[in-house]
């Protein structure tokens, strides 16, 4: 049989599988509904990151110092002035506008000038983390050292030497951007279950064996299942990417990463589908794969490079490529290592899926 004939057979099986899905009215309604929920969740999340500490201040005669403290977003402070210590305490108690308040005494300048000890009151909501309380106390002390004309005990380096890496002050990764790879990946993972279910049903109904009496080979069947799974996962992931406006930077690179992820997930679907005795066993076998595979996507929600054990998980490369392209504007060269790692894992998992399903079909 010619390669073209094989392609025709694979196409026919894929078309049959897709037709089966499209005839399932319930699947046709609920799958777009799930996508709508993912998209809505994405757009509901905050588009910016709050990276300043909002502090209420009551002071008399310290305008210049306080203005200097809250200067620019890089200061880390957002200062709100209050008319009286009572109003400041009330605001902290209400917890609506500020959760920290600093009340400088009216005679602070005089006290500092005459070397007289004075007391600054810091109101903090009990929910304020301890490190912020400690920092606010230190900040108050430092302000008064400055007022007293006591210089720093150290020589400070210039600002350029202090910040390592790209300075993202004012444009930190928002919760919305952090969720993007997780959502895309979730679609891929869930669709691997759909393929696993389809495979399990065919194995159970022995339709896979029936193919042996047609011109189609087992390889044609396996290829068709791989294509079906990839199409289902990739198609939905692309719709999601478009709907959450993610194709702005390097769309081809992003689509390649998602395609690699979709093929990888098809491999997982084939493994789970061939392992399960029935649909439910298949589903829960799939969960055993899904939990570790989802860890890199969850890890991307949190700062810093993932632990070494997370980096060796098969899905890490795909997730990092999505994060790199959508958050940090990576290009092909910058993503090459991650994409290469993902492609290698993709070959391993798809190969394993192929092998497992082949054995299962041949054993029928």
């Amino acid at each position, binding site marked *: 049989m010619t390669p073209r004939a094989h392609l025709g057979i694979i196409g026919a099986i894929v078309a049959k599988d897709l037709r089966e899905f499209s005839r399932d009215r319930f699947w046709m309604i609920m799958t777009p509904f799930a996508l709508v929920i993912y998209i809505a969740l994405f757009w509901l999340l905050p588009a910016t990151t709050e990276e300043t500490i909002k502090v209420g201040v009551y002071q008399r005669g310290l305008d210049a110092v306080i203005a200097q403290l809250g200067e620019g977003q890089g200061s880390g402070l957002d200062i709100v002035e209050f008319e009286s210590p009572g109003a400041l305490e009330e605001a902290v108690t209400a917890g609506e506008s500020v959760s920290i308040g600093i009340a400088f005494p009216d005679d602070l300048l005089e006290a500092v000038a005459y070397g007289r000890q004075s007391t600054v009151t810091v109101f903090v909501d009990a929910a304020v983390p301890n490190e912020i309380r400690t920092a606010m106390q230190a900040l108050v002390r430092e302000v008064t050292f400055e007022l007293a004309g006591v210089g720093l*005990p150290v020589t400070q380096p210039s600002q350029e030497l202090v910040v390592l890496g790209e300075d993202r002050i004012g444009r930190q990764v928002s919760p919305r951007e952090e969720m993007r790879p997780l959502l895309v990946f979730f679609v891929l993972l869930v669709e691997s279950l759909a393929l696993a*279910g389809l495979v399990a049903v065919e194995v159970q109904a022995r339709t896979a064996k029936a193919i042996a009496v047609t011109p189609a080979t087992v390889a044609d069947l396996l290829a068709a299942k791989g294509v079906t799974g990839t199409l289902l996962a990739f198609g939905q992931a692309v719709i999601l990417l478009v709907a959450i406006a993610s194709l702005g930077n390097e769309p081809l690179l992003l689509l390649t990463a998602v395609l690699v992820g979709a093929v990888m997930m098809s491999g997982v679907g084939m493994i789970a589908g061939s392992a399960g005795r029935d649909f439910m066993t298949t589903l829960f076998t799939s969960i055993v794969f899904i939990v570790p595979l989802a860890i890199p996507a969850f890890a991307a929600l949190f700062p810093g490079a993932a632990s070494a054990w997370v980096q060796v998980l098969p899905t890490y490369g795909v997730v990092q490529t999505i994060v790199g392209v959508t958050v940090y504007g990576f290009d092909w060269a910058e993503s090459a290592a991650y994409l290469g790692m993902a492609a290698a894992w993709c070959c391993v998992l798809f190969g394993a899926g192929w092998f497992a399903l082949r054995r299962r079909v041949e054993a029928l």
Partner: protein
Amino acid sequence: MNPFLALRVFLKDLRLGPRSPIFLWAVVFPVVGTLVVQLVFGSLFAPKPRLGIVDEGASAITAAAGEIDGIELSIVASADELTHLVRDHNLDAGLVLAAGFDDQVRAGERPPLQFFVSGESLASNRLILAVTTLDLVRAVEGSTPPVEVDVVSIGAPQLPLAARLTPMLVLFALLIAGVFVPAFSLVQERESGTLTAMLVTPVRGTDVLAAKAVLGFVLAFVMALVTLWLNDALGLEPAALLVAIAVGALMLAELGLIYGTAAKDAKILFTLMKSLNIVLFAPVVFYIFPDWPQWIAQLFPTYWVINPIFEIAINDASLADVAWQLGIALAICAAAIPVIAVLGRRLQGRVAAA
């Protein structure tokens, strides 16, 4: 409905349950979930500012920094390694303390402060670490601050991360035991033909539905309680907690019946779950990230059961404090009954026609 027959079906499900992987998942999940979240994800959720120090001369600053609650301190071997860690945002800031740094500070020589921050570090974390570091240096210098700082704490303290993760684990336990078990059990009985076979016995469809609901309710109730116990989150009001868990188990068991009766086969059930479970699970994300707009969580039905459980188990609320939330949850449960009745009748009709 015949309660005696429903009980017999329930006991049969309970006896055969352990053979089902879903049932086993429901029982095993509280232990596995607690372990995974506490041990594995615990290291990923790192909300504290992270400071790395290279100490080349046994500085007093290092010891003092280690005692500050709320700052995650790492001792790093070399300045090069520290630079890499900060650049990759594995640390928010880094401090290199050269040999003799403390002596130079005490002698008023104003040594250079080798302090750097990650470009990806939040401005607030940079401020916290910079100003705290400076304060530690001042302490070594021995200078007396011109003022006393009086801290007045207002309200209740912030919850640790483990407590904020508890709703996720409890909802997972409720979801697997309350929704998955009865739904899959119903679909499995339908697919294997045992539901049809029951038509020739005195058991009615309502008896089967009641048995599945009780199975989901009992399992969800027990597993949610076990999950809270494993996470040391039983609160101070055991009676209130039991009531809140019971309402939660009821809502989830009802949802399990809706899923199980609406789905004509396992594939449809799976589609239903993958589509709707995100709606059920969404509220717990808002506990993990308290800075996100919390009103969004209230849009999801499970919020009205998970929040009372959370308030009682973690914040020591009383039943009166959460009564109105449980009222909303019960209203949702009541609204689900006619839906289950309609779907149940449709299921019985389909089984009879099969």
